[in-house]
């Protein structure tokens, strides 16, 4: 028998008992709808959770200067000075997988305000991009400092919540002045509370300032380290224009002159570059691109090892992956259970249908239906019931997740994979659970089936 004829037969058989067909399908409709809605809501919440974990810094990469070694003695990470603020700018410019990067200059000193003082855990000189990298916007109060502040080494700071509590109990710090070492700085903003990091360090115990301010005014480590022995030649900070608007009093060397008389340029190093990859998945890609870029910028030959280290947040990355994996398997198990229940419903009704139509089966066999054709007919009915249920279920599930996202404000994500899977699964359920009743029907003895009351 032709497939089209068989499908038509199945449709006719189902339309003879519309209520029962509808009720049978309901099991699959609800099953598939649950799967679709759960998947969409689940994926929405999974990516919300992932975003939250990413905001903890899971997509951050930390670039540290490399290791110096002398006479076989290595001095550990960060013992040579190779990173510059320009490296950070170049990373954002040239690495598509990196969304933001900020240089960091560290200091450790006392902060004083009136009769109170405190030694913050972190004093970071950086650029405003740091707030983007660490996902620390918006501020709790005030405004972040600007790129112009970085250029002009402005005496402005952002302080963390712990510092605000210690130095400014019961008042707003914004606009007040604090003394950092011997420099008076104005507090322009207060950071939002972040709590302890994964190592248990208080992330709110922090002062952020333009890196130029920290380096040249506060830490005053303007001179490069002793390793840069030829630093005597240059003068002034190396970033192109530390004081915008300043007048050049002396004639500058032309590029040709500079090439002819190479003077070791004074080198503005930073202690660390922190960058954020576009998302969790592109971290490895970002690491690759940054490595390539920095090797190029640092003019390393192929046989030289990197003069920097890149660290990622493996522990957090693993947490993200584990969360995503757990959500997926949770959803899968829910989906399976509801589909199995729906499938058992189909099998149940198909068995009832076979029993009820025993005489019809006997008759069909008497007029020449072969066993295979009876089997195909009942299987086609089961599959069509499931397929119809699947399609209705997809619509219902989409509607439900739309309603939920509109009414409850939960985030949902459309999942074409779930839709495709739902159709596939509903057909599979139809075949699996329709086979036994269909097989039973095809093995009926026509004589007994005809006499069945």
């Amino acid at each position, binding site marked *: *028998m032709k497939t089209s004829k068989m499908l038509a037969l199945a449709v006719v058989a189902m339309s*003879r008992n519309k209520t029962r067909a509808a009720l049978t399908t309901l099991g699959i409709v609800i099953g598939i709808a649950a799967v679709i809605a759960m998947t969409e809501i689940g994926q929405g919440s999974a990516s919300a959770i992932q975003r939250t974990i990413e905001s903890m810094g899971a997509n951050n990469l930390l670039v540290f200067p490399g290791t110096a070694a002398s006479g076989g003695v290595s001095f550990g990470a960060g013992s040579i000075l190779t990173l510059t603020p320009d490296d950070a700018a170049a990373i954002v410019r040239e690495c598509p997988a990196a969304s933001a990067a900020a240089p960091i200059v560290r200091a450790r000193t006392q902060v004083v305000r009136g009769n109170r003082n405190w030694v913050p855990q972190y004093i970071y000189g950086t650029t405003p991009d740091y707030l983007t990298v660490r996902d620390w916007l918006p501020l709790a109060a005030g405004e972040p400092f600007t790129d112009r502040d970085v250029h002009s080494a402005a005496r402005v700071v952002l302080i963390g919540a712990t510092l605000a509590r210690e130095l400014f109990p019961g008042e707003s710090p914004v606009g007040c002045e604090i003394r950092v070492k011997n420099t008076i700085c104005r507090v322009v903003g207060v950071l939002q509370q972040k709590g302890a990091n994964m190592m248990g360090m208080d992330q709110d115990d922090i002062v952020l300032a333009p890196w130029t301010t920290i380096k040249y005014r506060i830490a005053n480590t303007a001179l490069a380290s002793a390793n840069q022995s030829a630093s005597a030649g240059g003068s002034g900070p190396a970033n192109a224009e530390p004081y915008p608007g300043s007048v050049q009093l002396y004639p500058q060397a032309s590029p040709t002159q500079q090439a002819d008389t190479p003077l070791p340029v004074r080198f503005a190093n930073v202690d660390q570059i922190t960058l954020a990859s576009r998302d969790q998945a592109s971290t490895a890609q970002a690491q690759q691109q940054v490595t390539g870029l920095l090797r190029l910028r640092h003019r390393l030959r192929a046989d030289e090892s990197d003069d920097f280290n890149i660290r990622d947040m493996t522990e957090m990355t693993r947490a993200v992956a584990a969360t995503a994996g757990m959500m997926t398997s949770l959803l899968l198990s829910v989906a399976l259970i509801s589909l199995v229940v729906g499938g058992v419903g189909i099998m149940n009704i198909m068995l009832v249908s076979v029993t009820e139509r025993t005489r019809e089966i006997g*008759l069909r066999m*008497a*007029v*020449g*239906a072969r066993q295979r054709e009876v089997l195909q007919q009942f299987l086609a009915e089961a599959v069509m019931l499931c397929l119809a249920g699947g399609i209705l279920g997809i619509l219902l599930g989409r509607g439900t997740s739309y309603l939920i996202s509109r009414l409850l404000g939960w985030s949902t994500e459309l999942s074409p994979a779930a839709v495709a899977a739902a159709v596939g699964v509903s057909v599979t359920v139809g075949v699996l659970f329709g086979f036994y009743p269909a097989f039973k029907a095809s093995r009926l003895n026509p*004589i007994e089936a*005809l006499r069945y009351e």
Partner: protein
Amino acid sequence: MAMIELRDIHKTYGTGEVETHVLRGVSMTIGSGEFVALMGASGSGKSTLMNLLGCLDQPTSGEYWLDGEEVGRLSSDRRATLRSRKIGFVFQSFHLLPRTTALDNVLMPVAYAIDADAAERRRRAVALLERVGLGEKMMHEPAKLSGGQQQRVAVARALVNEPRLLLADEPTGALDSRASAALLAMLGELHAREHLSIVIVTHDDSVARHAQRIVRLRDGSVVEDAEAAATAGAGR
């Protein structure tokens, strides 16, 4: 030419100690275009013989030649094909599909007929329904037809695939006397017009009287095989 030839057919149900010997060596020949009534008390084996004739069952031993073909040992699929091509069934309880129009009921066997021209069969179904007097009620569902009309739909269904042999199992069992008479008259007319072999199972002498020949069974053996007029006495 013989339509049906049975040679020493035995049929035994059950195995071992509780064997039931239903047919004990039945041999007979039914010619092409004959109208035979199969009679016997209940338990005489006439239903079993009917099932064997209709290729719904297989004999335990013996040979069954249908239209020049030995069919006693065919596989179930081959027998299904044979039923579709050569045999039409009419049952006591009509066995029409519920909630299906008379025309669709008649067309039902066409789905299982190999290489049947659907349009041609549809015309034939319409013609058959008209011939059995249901031209007006083609789109009626069985529930809206009387018993006699339902049985006539069943007859049309049995004939839609142009069988050589029509088997009717107590076709008048569920009908009143007027409807029975009408149906039997119609069968007689079909027999005359279509050159169809008809075997009708009944326990009713007045039904058997419409046949040309009456075969009586008792305890699984043929006890009488005679022209209808001779046995019934007060015949046609």
